[in-house]
């Protein structure tokens, strides 16, 4: 039980940025636009979040981190329009465009960091997120320490957004259209859905959520921005999208699974049974578990049918 109490809270803070970003991936891919650029969108989010936080810490006081992630969300949303223009309007190869986003974001982030701060990494922010105990709920025995003590509020926001995304995608007309555009754009078009508009919205949403993920990562874990702040989290999120079968709640579950595996690999060194296992095995365990899960446990992962195919009006 004590092990669970130490694994779950750490797993959740580890997972939160992945959940946000994976949700972004779900929106984009559900509309038929592959988004390899999640990593770049996270980098953009982390960069904007850190710079905004450093610059405006005095203005916004304790609200700085919240305002920072909001601004990061907007800027990354705007940034992702590049991907939308290239892959929706200009019908470019979506994978290549996504890779370009990754390179561009890192380049911009580091270039501006050097221009503005004169060095390769920023200072540590003075106003990151801090953990808090949830009033009342944290006093519940057993469950309290696991889910409500020393938690980042952003973790709850991530879970909330996952549920909200599920609702939007599966319970609203907007969601139905978005999914239709990703499955069979011509049918959707015939029924009066503006395919391009829907895809633009989806990509911009994925940019905003990716930026949110990146800035939350930066402000809860890294505390500064450098070329290595975001190193692979975007791709882990992408894996979570596929692992979660392009479903918001599935993606959230996959992200939390990654967090649990990662956390277990760290904590296991103090668990009697696992203590004697060489550390290298524990370090690779999360990835092995992921491969096993992808290969056998979840069955076929069916992508949205029109995923990756640019829609050209009038073609069959």
């Amino acid at each position, binding site marked *: 039980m004590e092990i669970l109490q130490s694994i779950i809270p750490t797993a959740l803070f580890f997972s939160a940025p992945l959940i946000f970003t994976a949700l972004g991936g779900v929106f984009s891919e559900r509309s038929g636009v592959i988004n390899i650029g999640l990593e770049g969108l996270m980098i953009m989010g982390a960069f904007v979040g850190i710079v905004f936080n450093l610059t405006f810490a005095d203005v916004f006081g304790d609200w700085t981190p919240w305002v920072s992630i909001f601004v990061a969300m907007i800027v990354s949303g705007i940034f992702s329009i590049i991907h939308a223009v290239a892959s929706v309007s200009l019908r470019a190869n979506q994978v290549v465009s996504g890779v370009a986003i990754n390179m561009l974001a890192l380049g911009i982030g580091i270039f501006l960091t050097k221009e503005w701060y004169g060095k*390769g990494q920023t200072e540590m922010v003075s106003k990151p997120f801090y953990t808090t105990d949830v009033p009342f709920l944290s006093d519940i025995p057993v469950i309290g320490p696991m889910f409500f003590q020393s938690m980042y509020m952003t973790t709850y926001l991530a879970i909330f957004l996952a549920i909200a995304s599920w609702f939007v995608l599966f319970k609203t007309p907007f969601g139905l259209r978005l999914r239709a555009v990703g499955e069979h754009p011509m049918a959707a078009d015939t029924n009066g859905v503006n395919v391009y508009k829907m895809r633009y919205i989806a990509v911009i949403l994925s940019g905003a959520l990716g930026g949110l993920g990146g800035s939350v990562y930066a402000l809860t874990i*890294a505390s500064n921005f450098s070329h*290595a702040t975001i190193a692979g989290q975007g791709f882990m999120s992408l894996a979570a999208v596929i692992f979660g079968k392009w479903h918001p709640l599935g993606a959230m579950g996959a992200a939390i699974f990654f967090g649990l595996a990662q956390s277990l690999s*760290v904590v296991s*060194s103090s668990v009697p049974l696992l203590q004697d296992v060489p550390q290298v095995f524990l370090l690779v365990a999360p990835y092995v578990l992921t491969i096993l899960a992808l290969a056998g446990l979840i069955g076929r992962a069916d992508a949205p049918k029109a995923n990756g195919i640019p829609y050209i009006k009038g073609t069959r």
Partner: protein
Amino acid sequence: MKKRFLLLVMLLTLGLIVAACGNNDDNNAADGNDNGTDTEQNGNDNASGNDEGEAGGDTDYTVAMVTDVGGVDDKSFNQSAWEGITAWGEEHGLAKGEGFDYLQSNTDADYIPNLQQLARADFDLIYGIGFKLEKGIADIAKQFPDKHFGIVDSVVDADNVVSIGFADNESSFLVGVAAALKTNTNKIGFIGGMESDIIEAFEVGFRAGAMSVNPDIDIKVQYAGGFDKADEGKLIASSMYNEDRDVIFHAAGGTGNGLFNQAKDLKKNDPDREIWAIGVDRDQHEEGKIDDHNITLTSAVKRVDNAVHEVSNMAMDGNFPGGEILKFDLKSEGVGYTTTNEDAMTQDIIDEVESWKEKIISGEIEVPSKYDGLEEYEESL
């Protein structure tokens, strides 16, 4: 079709250009790959022989350095090396541009042209700061056999190149002593970047130091598997602090950010809790600030400035140690620990650490740098 292709090409090109302009700062965050803990790269020091120079001061010997992409104000190796050269120059009445100078590398492609430019400009001794310049120094040293070169934190085998290294195990030993004195729970931790010879020296030194003060101390060692994994660092730190380990030393570059982040978060929520982090390579005091407290106990530092300064003097006096691998240790003030956090590093602790420092300098104890040596050391306690 054409249009699409063109756009992609343009996007990619733009990305490449911007990336090329910016990438330089790699050195700060995670150079770890080869130097494990070095968040930044070290430079090379080159001490070159005494040729004639045209400077004004009491010497005609001239010294220059090429930074790696971190830039001269990187708060780490490059800056430290430049401070060393500046101090050396001022000591001998020289001024920047006349007697000593530096060239900044903005991309990895700048190393060789920069080194060439300085060599042609008749500087006698040219340092390359950081392992990234290893190849550049090796090439240029061959082209200019009468010039003297130096490389920091790496090894170049040539008669006119001196390789400068640091005894990280000794500084780690001292912060290990400090950690063992500071802990209230007798449980401390070490976070490594990746398992390698360099990080092994940090780990072994730290453990030896802590055991010297308290043979029964419980030290937990965990490796994050990378120097850019702040999230992993934070997970490990969180788990160690949960086990009541109250002092944690990291030799993990950017991964260490997670340690500072976690320590500050705990301190923020419970200002009375006594937890500490120990920094590496440079004074990480700034990173530890939280409200009115500071959780950075001390840092195990590399004094690139001292190393550069000393090698420059040797070279000026005609004793350029070409072809040698110099190891800067406590004795030569090439490594050390910091006492910036005066509230945490009390006089008692400093006195005790100093007494161990003297024992190391006098050769009374030899700090191990390998696991084998650690076992022997433990038995000798």
